Every structure is written in C-alpha cells, then in structure tokens.
C-alpha cells in the first residue's frame, strides 16, 4: 500500500480533508453536518495519512499526543456551556454575536460548543486508532 503515489496523494489529501472537515463543522447549523461528523472526517484524514506514511510520521505532524485534544475540546465545550452562568443565565443558554459572519452565519456559543465536540472527536478517534496500531 505504501506506494509513492499514495504517500504523495495522502500528504496533499490531509490538508484538503482537514479543510473539508472544518467546512462540515461550520455549516452544521444549517445543513447536515456538525462537529461530530466533522471531527470524524478530520480523524479519518489523519488515519489515511498514517496508513500511507506510518504512524511515526503522522505523530510528527501533530507534534503532541492526540489525547490532549480531548481535555482541550472538553474545556472549550464546558466554557461554552457554562458561560451564561456568569451572567446569571441557565446552562447552555445561547449567547450570540450581534452580526452574522460571512460563510458561517450567526456566531454564538453553540458554535464554540460544536468546535469543542469536533476537537474531542478527533482526539478520541486518533487516540483509539493510534493506540491499537501501536500495540498490534
């Protein structure tokens, strides 16, 4: 499998797929998609890369253990969720910016929450897959 073509293709594929994943994440509020599916696609991007180039290379790109994406994502989601508490609102009450942002549409706490989901999903999937591949 580890042909040169596949290797080259995958190194181009990685940024492309990541972009696509982010696109899916951002449009989720309007069309099918969202943080979860987006995260999975991003994870699959890395997985394909690792199949082509070996796990060591892929880990080299990510620089840190993918597991750390989990607490970061969780923290982000948690902050988005409890932000309203500081103003006396209920948990997860939507907080919105006044004006829509191009491409994404309305930006609010729900989006940050979805980004948190995205990060967690990437972290989880990569942790599981990498750990298994390492211990085979």
């Amino acid at each position, binding site marked *: 499998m580890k042909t040169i073509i596949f290797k080259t293709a995958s190194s181009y594929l990685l940024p492309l797929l990541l972009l696509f994943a982010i696109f899916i994440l951002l449009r989720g509020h309007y069309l099918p998609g969202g943080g979860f599916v987006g995260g999975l696609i991003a994870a699959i991007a890395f997985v394909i890369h690792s199949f082509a180039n070996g796990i060591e290379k892929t880990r080299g790109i990510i620089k840190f253990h993918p597991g750390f994406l989990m607490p970061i994502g*969780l*923290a982000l989601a*948690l902050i988005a969720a409890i932000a309203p*508490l500081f103003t006396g*609102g*209920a*948990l997860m*009450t939507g907080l919105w910016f006044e004006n829509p942002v191009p491409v994404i549409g309305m930006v609010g706490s729900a989006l940050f929450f979805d980004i948190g989901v995205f990060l967690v999903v990437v972290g989880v999937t990569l942790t599981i897959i990498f750990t298994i591949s390492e211990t085979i």
Partner: protein
Amino acid sequence: MSNPYIILPIISQLFTAILLMFFWTQKNTQKAISVIMSLVTLGISVWLLTIVLKNGIHVTQAGSWEAPFGITFIADPLSSLMVLLTSLAGLAVSIFSVGSVRNARVRFGYFPIFHFLLMGLNGAFLTGDIFNLYVWFEIIIISSFVLITLGGEKAQIEGSIKYVTMNLLASAIFLTAIAILYGLVGSLNMADLSIKVANLENRRLVNVTAILFFVGFGIKSAVFPLHFWLPASYHTPPPAISAIFGGLLTKVGVYALLRVFTLIFVPDEFMINLISWVAGLTILTGCIGALIQNNIRKVFSYLIVGHIGYMIAGLGMFTEAALIGTVFYLIHDIIVKTNLFMVSGLIFKIKGTFSMRNLGGLYKEYPKLSLLMAIPIFSLVGIPPLSGFWAKLFWVESGFAIENFMLVAFIIAGSFLTLFVMAKLWAEVFWKDGDKLPKKINVKYFWELKPLKRTAMVFPIVFLSLISLYIGLGADHVIQLSTIIGKQLMDTTPYIEAVLGPINESQP
C-alpha cells in the same frame, strides 16, 4: 424556583476531571487536585441541600428553553440528598485513593475517570429528563468499565466482562423503554411524562413499558434475578474502586427506580406484587450468598444485593412510611457500604489477603483500628441504635399496616442473616489467632507505608464512621429529612409544578 447554579455539582466534577487530564503525568498534583476539588464539591452539595430544604425545589432549564422543550435539571430534596451523599463518599474515597491506589493506575487516568464517574452520578441525580438520564447512566457505565478494568488483571478482566455485558444489556433495555415511551407520548421530560402517562388510555402498554424500565433499572440496582454481575465483579478491582462502586453504583439504580416508579409509573397492584416478590427474593439471595463466602469483599458484595432488596421492599410496600424507610436506608447504606469496602482495603493492606480463612488477629495487633472498623461493621447489621436499625422500624410497621407479612418476614430474616454473617466475619477476621496463618510475600504492608499514606487510608474510614454514628444516634435529623423526601415521593405535585409551572386543575 429557578436557579441556574444547581448544576454546579456536575460542573465542578467535570471541571476537576478536565483539569486532571491536563496534569496527566503529574501524579502528586493529581492527588492534591482530587482531594481539594472533592472538598469544594462537598461544600457545593451542602449548599445545594440547604437551599433546597429552605426554599423548596429548584429548577434550571438548560439553554433557557422552557420545559418540556429543553432539558430540565431539578434539585428536589431527594436528588440534592443523593448529590450530597455522592460528594461525601467521593471525598472519602478520593482521600482513600491517595493512600491506596498504585501509582501505575494513577498514571493511566485513575483520578480523571473517578471524577467523571462522580460527575455522572450527580448528573443522573439532578436531571429531570428521561433521555438525559440515559446519557448520564452511560457516563456512569463507561467510567465504571474503565475503572473496573484499570490494571487489566485476569480477575479484573473476567469480572468486568460480566459487568460490561449486563450493563450494556441494561442500557439496551432502558433505551428500548425510552423508545416506546417516546412512541407513546412524544415527550421526554419526566414531569411532563408524569402527566401524559397518567392520561394514557392504553394501560397495558403503560404496564409493559413499566416492566421494561423495571428490568433495565433492576439490572443496574442488582435485584434478583438480575443481580448476577455484581457478585462476579465487585471484588475484583482495587479496594478504592470497589468502595465507590459498592457505595454508589447500585444506588443509582435504586434512585432511578424510586424516581420513575413514583413519578411516571405509579405502581398498580401487579407492579406492587412484582416488586414485593423481587425484593423479598433479593434479600434472601443476597444474604444467603453472603453467608457462605470466604472472601470478605464477596461477603460485602452479596450483602449489597441483600440490602438493595430492603430498599426495593420499601418501594414495593408503597406507603409513605415505607418510602421514608427506604430513603433513610439509602443514606445509611451509601455511607456504610463505601466505608466497608475501604475497611476491606485496609484489612488487605495490613494482612495481604481478603480471604477470611487466612485472616486473623487484627484485634490483637491493631486494637484501635479494629474498634474503628467495628463501627461500620455493626452499623451495617443495624445493631440499634446504629444507623442500619432505624429504617427497619418504618418497613416493619408499614408491612404490618398493609398486611404484607411476607416482606416483614423477609426483612427480619435478612437482618438476622446479616447479623450472623457480620458476627462471623468479626470472629474470623478480628478475633481468630493470627500467628499461624500463612504470610503473603511481595506485598507492601500497611506498616511499611509512609505515615501520610497510612493517614490517607485511615482518615476516610474515621470520617465515614463518624457520619454513620451521627445517622444512628442523631436519627431524628435524618428522619426529618427522610420524611420530607418520603412525602414528596408520594405526592409528586410539587415536583411537577416546579418544572412545568402551576397545573391547571380543570385538566384531567
């Protein structure tokens, strides 16, 4: 009354867990964070129970979507009490873990998962939405899976396979029940369900759904004949983990049963009979199982089953007094069972074994510790006036009042067996001459530990023992609290009104 801060017990545990994940490799920092944050959560829980008792039921609607459209979190006396008990047990076990959990386990996420588990428990108690309850249950399940297998020993794996299978089966049944419930009434909010289910005409379907819920929660709370996973698995993980499992996990099932069968499905005659028989047989299987065990943790595991039977019996009688008894017992049981599993851990540290045959001489070697450990042991038996005693008054009286002699007989038999089992355990473990018993090698014994670790193991036992003494001797306060809760379990109108606003009387 609305109060967005009632979810703080969940948030603080979640925050702790996330924080701990950031300190993945620093084991000492993790220990410090865990203990400190457990204290903080305890403070929050005390605050929560106080305001709930003072100002009535507190509610918050997540996302500010009014019920039944969003997810409701509700702190009524029962759920705030459960949160408080979780925090108490959590603090104790957190400290105990500092002393007893091996560094290898700490390095692989013991503390974060532990706090996730506590978060799941708090969530399950505070939620007012049936699907959200399912989700919290899944948190509890997955974190308990991880904890029970953490270390990956043979016994752990074998025990956990049973544990995992049964719990996943329970989840599937629970999910099926939710599917049917949604298919019938199109709602998920428990207060809303309470009204809608009561208005359903097809009672047979309601009954069937109730059975599915009963079995789903029944597996989790380990009632006969759904309990088999518990004795197969609870004695396998490290003692600190058994302690939190033994104290809290099955009680979530009991809590769910109490909640669902008082709020949504008010038991009819068929359900009452079913619950009563299940309760009676649970008491019996648990207690006779405990009678013949040799491993002290297995003894305690079987007693968990037996004593779950008591609590379900209270539900089966379905009178206010019986429910008061159940709530009282729930308080007692969480504290004492957690404590007992920690005691077993301490015994293991001292002697290097859990086997009664190979234990002995503790009373001679550690008289003061033995007296300390006697408190939970005899509290569990319910030697009056220790904490296990009071609930029986309520049940026995209710049993006579509704002429359910069978349950009275089962409760009495269960008490007797428990008494005998614990006395035997005392005689074997504490009294028997320990000089001639085989010594284990390759174990780090209690007296070899650093003083800090030893304190960390003994202090939580003292802490919980004091609480159980208080429950027993200061029974008046606890009974007052249980009475408030028991009344609200029988009359759910305040709960429903707190969530949905005043109910229009003219509606059926």
